[in-house]
C-alpha cells in the first residue's frame, strides 16, 4: 500500500479541483450545483483533512519527506563562490511543523465551509459559486504554501493567498466599502511582499539555493558560513553576519505585511468588510499565519542573527500592545476581534523572536483555533442581529443563543489567557521564554527582549479587558434593541463548527503544559517533543529543522548568542494570569450590569486617538499623497519627455527628412535627366578610383 507521502500532493490539489468546479459553474451562469459549490468544497476540504491526518500519523512515526517534484528552470554553471548552479523547482517538505500546520489549515477550512452553509446559503446570498471558488482557491494556495520546500515556491503561494484575500474581502463588491478594503489589503501586503521578493532573490544570489531543509538548505549553508566552513556570496560590501541579517529583514517585510504587524497592520481591520467566514478563515487562522509560519519555517536562518531576532521580538511586542490598546474602544464586534488578531500575532512574533520556537508555534496553534472560534461565534451573532455589528445594540443574547454563548465564552477565556484554557498555556510560555532569555542574555538582545516582555505583559492586561468587555456587551445585560430581543440561533451548520472549535479551544492547551511538567516532572510537553524529535537521529539529523538544532544555534556564539536564566515557569505564568484576571474582572465590573455605560468615553481625547487608530490610516494616505505621488509624477515626466520624447523624436526626424527630400521629385523631366547624369558621373568616378583606371 502506498504511503501517505505519495498522496500528499492531493492535499493541495483537492481544494483546487473544487475551485475549478465552482469557477466552471460561475462562468456558465447557470444554477448547476444545489448549494452553489459548497458541497464540492466541503468534500474537498474533508478529503484534505483526512490526508493531512494520515500524513500527521506517518510523520509521528518518524518518517519525513523533502523532495523536489518538478524543476522548472535549471542553471548551467555556478557563479561567484557558489559550488552548484542555481535551480528553481517545486517540491514538498513534510516534517512535524508542516504536518501540524496542514492539519490546522484543513480543519479550519472544513469548519468554515460548513459554517458558510449557514452564513451564506441560508441567508440567501447571491453569487455563491464565486464565493466557494474563492474559498477553494484560498485553501489550495494556503496548503500549497505549507507544503512548500523552498522559499520561491513559498513566495508564489504567499502571493496567491494575498490574491484570494483580495477576491474574498471584495466579495460584496457592489457596495462601497468592500472593494476599497480589498484594494487596501492587497496594496499594503504587496508593499511588504516587495521586500520579500528582494529577499528571495538575495537568498538565491547568496546561497544558490532556497531550500528550507536538508544538508544543502540555505540555513545550513549559512550556519556553516558563519562557522567558517563554507563560503557564500555577500553583497554591498557586508560581511556574512550583517548580510544574513539584511536578508532576514527583507523577508521580514513580507511577514510584517502578511501577518499585519506594525506598521503594515492597517489593512486587517478594514478587511472585516468581507463575509465573516472569510474573516475567520483568512484573517484569523490561516492567511495571517502564513507570515509567522514562514519565520518558523526559516527559523534555522533567523536564529543565526541576534539583530533580526531582536527586531522580530520588538515589532511583535509593540504590535501586541499597540493593537490591544486600540481594541479597548471599538464598538463593532468584528473590529475588536480584528485588533485582537493583530495583537495575538504580535505575541507569536515575540515568542519566535525571543528564541521560543516551541512557544511561538504553540501560540500559533492555539490562536488558530480560538480566533476562528471567536470569529465564527461573531458570525452567528451577526446572523442573529441581521448583520448589525454594533455591540451597543446587542445585549442579553446569552439566554437566546446558548451554544454560541458558551463556545464564545470558551474562546474568550482562551484569548484572555485564563487557566486551563488553551491561550493561557501558550501565552504564558511565550512570555516565559521572553523573560528567561531576556534576563539570561547579556548582549543588546537581552535588553530588547526584556523591553518586549514588558510590553507583552501590559498587553495581557488590555487583552483581558477588551475580550470581556466584548463578551459582556454582546451577551450579558438587557437587550438594547428590538433585533437583540428577537435574536435566534442558526441551525446545525452554524452550531457544529462552534462546538468543535469550542472543544478544541478548551483542550488543545493540554498538548504542552510546561508549568505542570516542571511541577510534576511528567513528560507531558507533547508539542515540544513533536517539534524537537530525537536528538542526533532520524529527521532531526537529516532535515535540520528540529528544535534541538534551533536551540543549539540560538545558544551558540556564532548564532544569536542567547542564554537562559533559571526561573520557574509557573511563577511567570501566575503573574500573567493575575494580570489577565484583573483585566477580565474590571471589564466584568464595568460592563457586566444590566445597562452598562460607555465607560471609554471618559478617556476623552485619548479615546479619540485610539478610536482613530492613532491616525495611522491617515498617515499612510498622507505618505501616498505627499511622497509617492510626487515621485511617480516625476517618473511620469521622465517617461513622457525623455523616453517617449526620444521615440517620437526619431519618428519626427524621419517625417521631417521625408517631407524635405520629397521635393526633389518636382515633375520636371529635365531635372530628372540632370540627376541621372550626375549619378552616372559619380558612379564612373567611383569605379575609376576603385578600379584603378587612372
Amino acid at each position: 500500500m502506498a504511503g501517505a507521502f505519495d498522496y500528499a500532493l492531493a492535499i493541495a490539489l483537492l481544494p483546487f479541483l473544487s475551485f475549478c468546479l465552482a469557477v466552471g459553474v460561475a462562468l456558465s451562469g447557470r444554477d448547476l450545483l444545489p448549494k452553489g459549490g459548497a458541497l464540492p468544497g466541503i468534500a474537498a476540504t474533508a478529503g484534505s483533512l483526512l490526508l493531512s491526518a494520515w500524513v500527521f500519523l506517518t510523520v509521528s512515526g518518524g518518517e519525513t519527506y523533502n523532495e523536489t517534484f518538478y524543476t522548472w528552470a535549471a542553471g548551467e554553471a555556478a557563479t561567484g563562490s557558489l559550488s552548484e548552479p542555481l535551480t528553481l523547482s517545486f517540491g514538498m517538505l513534510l516534517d512535524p511543523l508542516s504536518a501540524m500546520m496542514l492539519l490546522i489549515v484543513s480543519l479550519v477550512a472544513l469548519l468554515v465551509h460548513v459554517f458558510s452553509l449557514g452564513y451564506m446559503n441560508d441567508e440567501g446570498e447571491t453569487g455563491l459559486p464565486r464565493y466557494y471558488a474563492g474559498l477553494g482557491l484560498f485553501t489550495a494556495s494556503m496548503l500549497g504554501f505549507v507544503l512548500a520546500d523552498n522559499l520561491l515556491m513559498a513566495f508564489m503561494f504567499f502571493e496567491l493567498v494575498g490574491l484570494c484575500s483580495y477576491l474574498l474581502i471584495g466579495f460584496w463588491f457592489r457596495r462601497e466599502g468592500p472593494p476599497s478594503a480589498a484594494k487596501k489589503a492587497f496594496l499594503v501586503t504587496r508593499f511588504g511582499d516587495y521586500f520579500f521578493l528582494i529577499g528571495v532573490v538575495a537568498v538565491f544570489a547568496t546561497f544558490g539555493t532556497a531550500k528550507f531543509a536538508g544538508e544543502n538548505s540555505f540555513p545550513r549553508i549559512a550556519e556553516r558560513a558563519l562557522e567558517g566552513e563554507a563560503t557564500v556570496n555577500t553583497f554591498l560590501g557586508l560581511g556574512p553576519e550583517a548580510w544574513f541579517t539584511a536578508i532576514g529583514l527583507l523577508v521580514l517585510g513580507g511577514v510584517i505585511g502578511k501577518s499585519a504587524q506594525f506598521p503594515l497592520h492597517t489593512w486587517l481591520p478594514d478587511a472585516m468588510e468581507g463575509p465573516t467566514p472569510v474573516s475567520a478563515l483568512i484573517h484569523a487562522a490561516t492567511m495571517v499565519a502564513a507570515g509567522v509560519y514562514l519565520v518558523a519555517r526559516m527559523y534555522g536562518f533567523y536564529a543565526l542573527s541576534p539583530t533580526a531576532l531582536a527586531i522580530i521580538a520588538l515589532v511583535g511586542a509593540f504590535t501586541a500592545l499597540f493593537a490591544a490598546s486600540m481594541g479597548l474602544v471599538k464598538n463593532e464586534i468584528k473590529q475588536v476581534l480584528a485588533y485582537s488578531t493583530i495583537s495575538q500575532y504580535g505575541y507569536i512574533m515575540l515568542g519566535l523572536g525571543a528564541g521560543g520556537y516551541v512557544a511561538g508555534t504553540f501560540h500559533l496553534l492555539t490562536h488558530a483555533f480560538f480566533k476562528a472560534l471567536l470569529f465564527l461565534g461573531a458570525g452567528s451573532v451577526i446572523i442573529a442581529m441581521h448583520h448589525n455589528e454594533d455591540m451597543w445594540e446587542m445585549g442579553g443574547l446569552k439566554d437566546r443563543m446558548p451554544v454560541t454563548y458558551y463556545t464564545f465564552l470558551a474562546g474568550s477565556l482562551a484569548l484572555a489567557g485564563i487557566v486551563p484554557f488553551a491561550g493561557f498555556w501558550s501565552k504564558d510560555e511565550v512570555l516565559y521564554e521572553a523573560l528567561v532569555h531576556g534576563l539570561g542574555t547579556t548582549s543588546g538582545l537581552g535588553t530588547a527582549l526584556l523591553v518586549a516582555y514588558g510590553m507583552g505583559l501590559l498587553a495581557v492586561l488590555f487583552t483581558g479587558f477588551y475580550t470581556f468587555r466584548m463578551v459582556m456587551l454582546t451577551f450579558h445585560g438587557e437587550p438594547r434593541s428590538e433585533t437583540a430581543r428577537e435574536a435566534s440561533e442558526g441551525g446545525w451548520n452554524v452550531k457544529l463548527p462552534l462546538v468543535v472549535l469550542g472543544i478544541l479551544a478548551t483542550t488543545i492547551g493540554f498538548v504542552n503544559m510546561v508549568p505542570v511538567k516542571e511541577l510534576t516532572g511528567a513528560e507531558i510537553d507533547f508539542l515540544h517533543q513533536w517539534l524537537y524529535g530525537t536528538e542526533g537521529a532520524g529527521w532531526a539529523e537529516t532535515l535540520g529543522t528540529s528544535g534541538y538544532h534551533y536551540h543549539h544555534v540560538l545558544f551558540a556564539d556564532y548564532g544569536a548568542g542567547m542564554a537562559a536564566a533559571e526561573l520557574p515557569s509557573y511563577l511567570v505564568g501566575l503573574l500573567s494570569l493575575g494580570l489577565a484576571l484583573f483585566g477580565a474582572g474590571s471589564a466584568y465590573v464595568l460592563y457586566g450590569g444590566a445597562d452598562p455605560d460607555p465607560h471609554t468615553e471618559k478617556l476623552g481625547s485619548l479615546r479619540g486617538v485610539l478610536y482613530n487608530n492613532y491616525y495611522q490610516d491617515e498617515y499612510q494616505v498622507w505618505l501616498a499623497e505627499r511622497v509617492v505621488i510626487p515621485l511617480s509624477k516625476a517618473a511620469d515626466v521622465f517617461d513622457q519627455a525623455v523616453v517617449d520624447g526620444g521615440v517620437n523624436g526619431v519618428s519626427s526626424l524621419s517625417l521631417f527628412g521625408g517631407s524635405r527630400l520629397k521635393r526633389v521629385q518636382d515633375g520636371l523631366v529635365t531635372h530628372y535627366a540632370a540627376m541621372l547624369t550626375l549619378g552616372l558621373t559619380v558612379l564612373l568616378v567611383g569605379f575609376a578610383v576603385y578600379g584603378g583606371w587612372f
Partner: protein
Amino acid sequence: MVSRPELKSDTNYVNGLAAILLFVVLVAVFLTASFGEAAGFAADASLVAGIGYALMDLHAESAVDVEGFLATFETVGLVLVAATVAAVTLAGREGADEVVTALTDGGQPTEAENESEVEN
C-alpha cells in the same frame, strides 16, 4: 521707354553643367587608358559584303571576321513594325468621324463660324 526685342530664349544653362562634368570625366578616362595596336582590316576585303553575309547568317563566307546577326535582323524588323503601328495609334484622334487629311483649306471660315458671325 522702348525695350528692344529679344530672342525668346528657352534654354536653362545651369543644368548643362552636369553634361560638361560628364564630358570631363569621360575624356579623363579615355586619354589615360592604353589600347593596343589597331588591328584594322585587309585593304581589299569587302566590308559591306561582309555585313550583308552577317545579316543572313552566312558569315562563314565572308573574308572578314564577323558574327551571325540573323535573329537580331528579324527582331529589329518586328520592332520597326511595332513602332510604326504605335506611332499611328498614338497620333489618331478619339471619335474621329471626319476624314482627317494633311491638306489645308487656306483658312476659309467653316459653316459653324459663319453661323456664329451672323448671330453676332
